[in-house]
């Protein structure tokens, strides 16, 4: 069995990281726990750093260190425990997709600090919407995916420690041909890579490649390989396979003007951009663009899936406790309180000699804090106008009912807004009652004009209200999209459409995720535009049955 190219890339990335751990910052490894992954991780001791394991909910005390109370009391002098970040280390973060933005920011700071840390983020995310925080992904040189690699395609791999050490020693002396940076920057721009860290990481990778090869100068092949490793997984757009002549021309025109030194000496130093682009294209999987689109869609709908994070003192995942007063609401962190009180016992006893036992003062009180996911609220905005009624109000009702059953299972709240005639009506304020919702829905009459803007405004108001009460709203619009009644009740098709668009943008500006379901007999172009303004998925369902509709909603809002 031949070696998988993905495996070859992974082992090369690991060796490069061992050559320049601080500079290349690390690897984003997408793979479930598997023998293949274990085989790669077994080579981690090749890194010239101690390997430290983290946990996605690692606390600040573990990261930065803190007062070691047991040692302090025993010694009678302050003893601090060392944090993981105290010394340069190869940090291994399993379940990296679950790391909070806060942890990602802390790790990003640690990587930026120049202390020489590197990070191996093991991303075990299942779908495109579950992934490493972008702040970290941006800083890590190598993005690898071991998912499709079988064990037999991944021969055992033992890095040559001597060669790596020699390469590390030689790294500083490796020079870069003039023009290489310009080429890296241009290729990055053409692949739609915005971050300026990426070309720098590619440059460092090229240097490490040259050092590994025992050369004192970066060669074209190094750049090719570096670009393939670093750029390919980050490309957000692909250049034309056969670029039109005007495309590569501007860089060539720029060169003489800026006096770029890319043409010094022989022509072999002039690195052809196309060559680098080819290398990237070769490394891209065939369905790259489809996956990009999926990733973008997932980003649009993010936050709707699980509700926003909320901090409180009642329930959820525990956070470090903090100082506070007893108010009957919050729960006291007894251990934290005792730990805060302990160092002061000597001083306090001297101050009040008469009192025996532990002296705890209000200052010592530590309160528990928890992080919780807020409840999701699905706001259904249903078009009950004449045109929609004629089409398929019944079907829409059926779909909503199916969704309700699902929402009930997930303990989501639902609200129902119907619009017809000249305005919108809140049929059902946010509730978890399935029966009530069904009853209201069944009694929903159809007929009249289509005041789409009024419906959207009601949805916006309700969503903001709900957010104020700690819920995470999402708006699901079911309509045939022929808006013909303006907000003031006039029958003005143009004004109605413009207002609906404006409100859709308003919803997007507030970060309220949405979904547009076209219930018309034929897909309506205006509605696709509206979905664009909402930044929401658009589902034309000309022959929808309720079950398909429900599946589509579940998929679009991300379970």
């Amino acid at each position, binding site marked *: 069995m031949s070696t998988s190219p993905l495996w070859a890339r992974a082992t090369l990335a690991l060796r490069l990281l061992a050559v320049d751990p601080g*500079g290349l910052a690390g690897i984003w490894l997408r793979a479930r726990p598997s023998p293949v992954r274990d085989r790669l991780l077994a080579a981690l001791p090749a890194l010239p750093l101690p390997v430290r394991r983290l946990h996605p909910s690692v606390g*600040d005390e573990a*990261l*930065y260190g803190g*007062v070691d109370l047991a040692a*302090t*009391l025993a010694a*009678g*002098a*302050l003893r601090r425990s060392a944090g993981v970040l105290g010394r340069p280390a190869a940090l291994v973060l399993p379940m990296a997709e679950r790391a909070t*933005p*806060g942890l990602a*920011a*802390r790790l990003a*700071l640690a990587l930026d*600090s*120049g202390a020489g840390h590197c990070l191996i983020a093991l991303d075990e995310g299942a779908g495109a919407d579950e992934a490493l925080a*972008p*702040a970290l992904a*941006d800083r890590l040189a190598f993005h690898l995916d071991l998912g499709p690699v079988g064990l037999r395609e991944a021969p055992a791999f033992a890095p040559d420690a001597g060669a790596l050490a020699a390469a590390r020693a030689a790294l500083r002396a490796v020079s*870069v041909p003039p023009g290489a*940076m*310009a080429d*890296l*920057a*241009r290729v*990055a*721009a053409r692949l739609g890579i*915005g*971050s*300026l*860290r*990426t*070309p*720098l990481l590619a*440059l460092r990778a090229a240097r490490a490649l040259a050092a590994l090869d025992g050369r004192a100068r970066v060669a074209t092949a190094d750049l090719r390989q570096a670009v393939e490793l670093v750029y390919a997984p980050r490309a957000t757009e692909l250049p034309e396979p056969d670029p039109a002549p005007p495309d590569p021309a501007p*860089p060539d025109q*720029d060169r003489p003007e*800026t006096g770029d030194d890319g043409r010094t000496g022989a022509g072999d130093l002039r690195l052809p951009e196309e060559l680098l682009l080819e290398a990237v294209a070769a490394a891209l999987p065939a369905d790259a663009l489809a996956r990009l689109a999926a990733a973008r869609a997932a980003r649009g709908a993010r936050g709707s899936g699980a509700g926003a994070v909320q901090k409180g003192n009642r329930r959820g995942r525990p956070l470090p406790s*903090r*100082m506070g007063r007893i108010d009957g609401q919050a729960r006291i962190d007894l251990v934290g309180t005792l730990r805060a009180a302990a*160092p*002061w016992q*000597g*001083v306090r006893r*001297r101050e009040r000699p008469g009192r025996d036992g532990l002296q705890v*003062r209000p*200052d010592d009180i530590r309160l528990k804090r928890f992080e919780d996911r807020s409840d999701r609220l699905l706001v259904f905005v249903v078009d009950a106008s004449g045109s929609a009624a004629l089409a398929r109000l019944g079907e829409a009702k059926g779909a909503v009912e199916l969704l309700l059953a699902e929402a009930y299972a997930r303990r989501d709240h639902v609200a129902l807004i119907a619009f017809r005639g000249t305005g919108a009506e809140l049929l059902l304020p946010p509730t978890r009652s399935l029966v009530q919702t069904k009853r209201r829905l069944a009694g929903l009459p159809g007929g009249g004009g289509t005041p789409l803007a009024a419906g959207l405004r009601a949805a*916006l108001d309700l969503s903001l209200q709900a957010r104020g009460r700690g819920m995470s709203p999402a708006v699901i619009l079911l309509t045939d999209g022929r808006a013909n009644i303006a907000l003031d009740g006039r029958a003005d098709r143009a004004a109605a459409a413009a*207002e609906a668009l*404006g*409100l859709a*943008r*308003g*919803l*997007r*500006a*507030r*970060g309220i995720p949405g979904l547009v379901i076209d219930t018309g007999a034929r897909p309506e172009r205006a509605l696709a535009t509206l979905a664009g*303004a909402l930044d929401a998925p658009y589902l034309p369902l000309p022959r929808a049955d309720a079950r398909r509709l429900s599946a589509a909603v579940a998929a679009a809002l991300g379970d």
Partner: protein
Amino acid sequence: MTQPFPFAAIVGQDEMKRALILTAIDPRIGGVLVFGDRGTGKSTAVRALAALLPPIRAVEGCPVNSPRPEDIPDWAQVPSRRIVSRPTPVIDLPLGVTEDRVVGALDIERALTRGEKAFEPGLLARANRGYLYIDEVNLLEDHIVDLLLDVAASGENVVEREGLSIRHPARFVLVGSGNPEEGELRPQLLDRFGLSVEVASPKDIEARIEVIRRRDAYESDPEGFLRRWKREDGRIRTRILAARAALPALATPEAVLRDCAELCVALGSDGLRGELTLLRAARALAAWEGAAEVARAHVRTIAPSALRHRLRRDPLDEAGSTVRVGRVVEEVLG
């Protein structure tokens, strides 16, 4: 990191650099918020600023950088009365910081070893008369934000622990940076920042190449690179000092006051903070440019930075706040 990247060597990002320089000229402008994409040099610029700022004169060994011996708070035991020159403090407030680290706490070590109650000043004390920098400010814990708001408003930090009441001045320029994709900032904190800047990665390919080239030169040979840019940084520092000296004598014509007020009314920004900041920033800009008086052009240049984070969100207006400020500036100032 040994030495930060030199300020003068940062390619482009003129608005961000200008905003930082203006706060160095007049700290009362009240801080800078830098929001933008990843990898655009936000934190690089702030850290570079530290090396650029002119030194301050303070009592030797004073934990709150008091300018005169009589300003030293009574809890601090400062043996020296000598005034020395020290670099303007630029203090990092890390995300995971505890309340005790920020405001200061009683010194546990002394309590345990000597049974004494002594105050150990926190980051706010160290940042007095300097800068407090928060990277990823939008991810800061709410209770730390509340604390900072409180201190920023009063200019004084009060700590009450173990029966001791300790207070010390805490006046600092708040600099925050963040990526809006990762979370919004609370409006109360937003309003505390005098200027707000949006940064994006440069679109111009030559600028991008230059960024990479300089960064690589810096990483390969930090000493040599710093030596090359030292003179440039020195020039900026001299200009900041000159502008500071010129600021009090700078004339503010009535028309400029009117412009500021009209702009703020047209934009519907809440309170008077917007007007004050706009005026102060325009004056600092005029001083930086060596003008004898503030002109409409200065107001126009600085208006987006001073006002874009003070607008009310309008659900029916999809344009970004920068565009809206630009539109109103065009309407009002013609």
